[in-house]
């Protein structure tokens, strides 16, 4: 297994880093400023945990399904799941929460129930996001609201584990979910994750891409007053500021999309215990995918304790969601830069690829 030098050459210097933060702070040699992850000094070791846990190196989609869920996926669009729902927070909906506030509510519930000792989240606001290690439900709720730039939040996870934190939880983008799973399942050169045990909860977010920090420049040039909230629905990005609402086209943001996100196959956090995203039709609700048993149990508990209101996922919306996810995958697989097994490019084994093409063909465009 390669090490820090390869991480630098293969991922960081190739602009393939998605700023998940998992390698940051594993050692004194990898650090971050905003979303920038840098090797500040060569450690000289041939093998490194940093390379092993990087979500942009050495991923086989099927092997990861087996490692996390013990089974292969049937649905190539959305991955392994036990159920898909719409949901919204019933009580204490966090202020500033996106859509139905489900991610914040579930993170808070996991903390209250002792399922996790602490939860890694992204706090701050659109212009100034930063990692937060929430130890209480209130701290978790305070992080509500989507951030659209890559924030290396998992850095704080490493710090917490080093300080002896057991069964932590993570709320993250698909790349961060994958990083957490690699830390859990890979044989690692370093001992950083040996005492951590498995994660208490991995709550994934839907994410089609994250934006480069140059986006801040774009934003501050366009919006001069305080930004309250940002959203990127199908129609294009919307900024709610104090002075009013600003709208652009997705195309306006494309120059700021991270290169690594263009090569990512996973838009629904396929290896999370539970994944949360927008509904794309009702801003008061979220889409929720229960994937693992743990995710399923958390959702049941939320329902039982009246934390969440949960409904059937509308049958007519389901193909649309699958189409969006499949389209992204097919776009990646057809890209010239996509070379399976190369850094930044997950491996889709032939049987998965065959199913993928069949399922994609079966979806009306």
């Amino acid at each position: 297994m390669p090490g820090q030098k390869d991480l630098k050459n293969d991922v960081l210097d190739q602009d393939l880093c998605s700023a998940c933060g998992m390698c940051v702070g594993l050692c004194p040699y990898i650090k971050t400023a905003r979303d920038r992850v840098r090797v500040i000094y060569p450690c000289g070791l041939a093998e490194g945990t940093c390379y092993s846990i990087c979500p942009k190196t050495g991923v086989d989609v099927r092997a990861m399904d087996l490692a996390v869920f013990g089974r292969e996926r049937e649905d190539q669009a959305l991955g392994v799941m036990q159920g898909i729902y719409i949901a919204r927070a019933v009580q204490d909906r966090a202020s500033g929460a996106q859509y139905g506030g489900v991610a914040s509510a579930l993170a808070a519930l996991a903390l209250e129930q002792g399922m996790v000792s602490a939860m890694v989240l992204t706090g701050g606001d659109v212009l100034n996001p930063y990692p937060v290690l929430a130890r209480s439900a209130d701290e978790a709720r305070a992080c509500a609201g989507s951030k659209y730039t890559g924030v290396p939040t998992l850095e704080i996870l490493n710090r917490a584990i080093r300080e002896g934190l057991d069964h932590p939880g993570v709320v993250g983008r698909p790349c961060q979910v994958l990083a957490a799973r690699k830390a859990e399942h890979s044989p690692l050169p370093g001992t950083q994750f040996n005492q951590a045990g498995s994660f208490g909860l991995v709550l994934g977010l839907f994410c089609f891409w994250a934006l480069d920090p140059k986006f801040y420049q774009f934003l501050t040039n366009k919006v001069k007053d305080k930004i309250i909230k940002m959203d990127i629905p199908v129609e294009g990005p919307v900024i709610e500021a104090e002075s009013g609402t600003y709208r652009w086209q997705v195309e306006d943001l494309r120059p700021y999309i991270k290169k690594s996100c263009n090569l990512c196959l996973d838009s629904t956090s396929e290896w999370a215990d539970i994944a949360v995203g927008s509904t794309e039709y009702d801003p008061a609700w979220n889409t929720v995918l229960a994937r693992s048993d743990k995710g399923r149990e958390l959702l049941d508990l939320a329902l039982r304790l009246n934390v969440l209101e949960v409904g059937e996922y509308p049958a007519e919306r389901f193909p649309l969601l699958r189409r969006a996810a499949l389209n992204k995958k097919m776009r990646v697989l057809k890209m010239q830069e996509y070379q399976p097994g190369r850094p930044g490019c997950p491996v889709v084994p032939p049987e998965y690829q065959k199913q993928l093409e069949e399922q994609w063909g079966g979806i009306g465009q």
Partner: protein
Amino acid sequence: MTIMGVCCDKPGVKVALTGNESIARGALEAGVGYASSYPGSPTAEVLGTLAKLARQFNLYAEWSINEKVAMEVAAAASFTGLRSLVIMKADGLNVALDFASALAISGCRGGMVIVVGDDPGAHSSVREEDSRNLCKALHLPVLEPASVQEAKDVTREAFSLSESLQLPVVVRCVTRVCHASGDVLLGELAPAGRRPAFNQGDRVITFSIKLHALQEQKLARASDWAGNSRLNSYHGPGDAGRLVIASGPCYMYALEALEMLGLSEQVGVLKLGVTWPLPEKLLLSYLKTAAEVVFAEEVEPFVEDNVMALAARHWDEVGKIKFYGKRNGQVAGPNGPGIGELDPDVLAQSLSAIWGTPYTKPALPAHQEIFDLLGTKMPDRELALCAGCPHRASFWSIRTALELDGRGGIVLGDIGCYTLGIARTGYYLLQTMHCMGAGVGIASGLGKLDCFGFDKPVITVVGDSTFYHAALPALVNARYHRASFMCVVLDNETTAMTGHQPHPGRETTATGEPADTVPMEEIIRGIGIPYAVQDPYDVEAAIEAVYRMLQQQGPRVLILRRACALAAVKGKQKNRVYVDPEKCIGDSCGCSRFCSKVFACPANIWDAESGKARIDEAVCNGCGVCATLCPQQAIVVERTV
């Protein structure tokens, strides 16, 4: 080697002094009333010694802001009739040169001595400048002591020469004399008590070509005086055909070399205590009998060139002489002629080659044994910042911030402990290094190249003492021209490198009097440059501070302030720092010996046997920075307070 010896009022008694103390004693014997200096090796201890005795001898002593000001304040005292002394290293004479060249024309009144410390071999300097060439250009007489005793005698003599010529006199003293210790036969202490006088109508002016003529006359008188001075001496047979002309400690080396070669009876040694202007008549009298002349001096062929010019002018009197020295490469150390120090061995080898006298370097059996024993085991001692040095933490923060920034920012520096930023101990950060304050000026220059597309961020580091000494004009220039760069003041609250002398940012003066402190923040604010202050020991915060400021434009200053680690623990019990071997992961992934291999504080060592990090408690100053950087929190700090 004590202050007691310097002020001992027992003429005729011998006391052990260092060369620098001996200079101070010479000044006291001459009745010095005013002394000023900017600290610089090898002469840093002269002013410190006089400052301690200031009250007792009713003299005034100050650490001036820089050498030019030091020379000006000393000149002022001389203009009023007081005897004054100004001390600097060779580099300092460069700083003072503008004033010195004017002062050499206007002349002085009370005896004024300029002690210049030259550093052949550049032991504690960036270059081995030979200041005699400058002194010649300045038209100032130069006296050179050959021993610790002479350091005193020459200094005392310099005062009376200066007073009689009404011209400042330079005492050029090299490291081997300044830092040596030896018995000094004490003379009479002169009673202080001259009263300064500068009356209406008194004029000390540098103007008119007539003064140039006067200057030349003064030098001619100095040459006549030198011919009879006891500072020059001859040792050897009468009418020697073979002659060594030596100055400074090379005189001692010459005597020793000749003795080793068994040539003491055949070869004469003429010691020049006055090397500018040359004692021409004296020299001619020896050149007339000599057929072969060897020059022994450091560093440049100064006496050599000037004596050869003298001989050329008097070719009809001196006859044919073969000259051996640096010009023809016959007198040369391992680095070549005119480079580095001489010593008895180098000189013996040169003389042996010149005269064909066999010479083998004396074996020192006792020492050889030790070398054999240790030779393979002794690691090279590399240039390193001290254990706990705040500059190390600062350099690490700057390096980290630059890597995070990723634009290939460049770092400039200049003179101070932080000069070691050129070496591994400073992560090889510094890319330019010239003289006091030069980093700020160069940064100001680079900070204006954006119009040509130069877009790299520029950082210059400057020490606190250097900040006051030489950084201010460049900072004002930068502000005025909107030059874009970041100046990091590595403020260790002292002039650390030369022995913790105070500067205008401190609360007391050289003599311990309360001072009106001039905080650098107020200066920077006054110039109109934004600044921030950060403790470099808080490495995370320092990285953040450097990174944040790197993103800004225009001139800006970050003060990384933390007392010099050596000064901080002086007289105090140090924190105990140790490694918990249970937690240390040593070579493994996640550390890879960060503390000893990368951060590389001399107190962070590697125990090969256990495969764990260790703290060298004898060296550690207890700062605890490594404990905050250890990824495993394996380093424990037991605070004493």
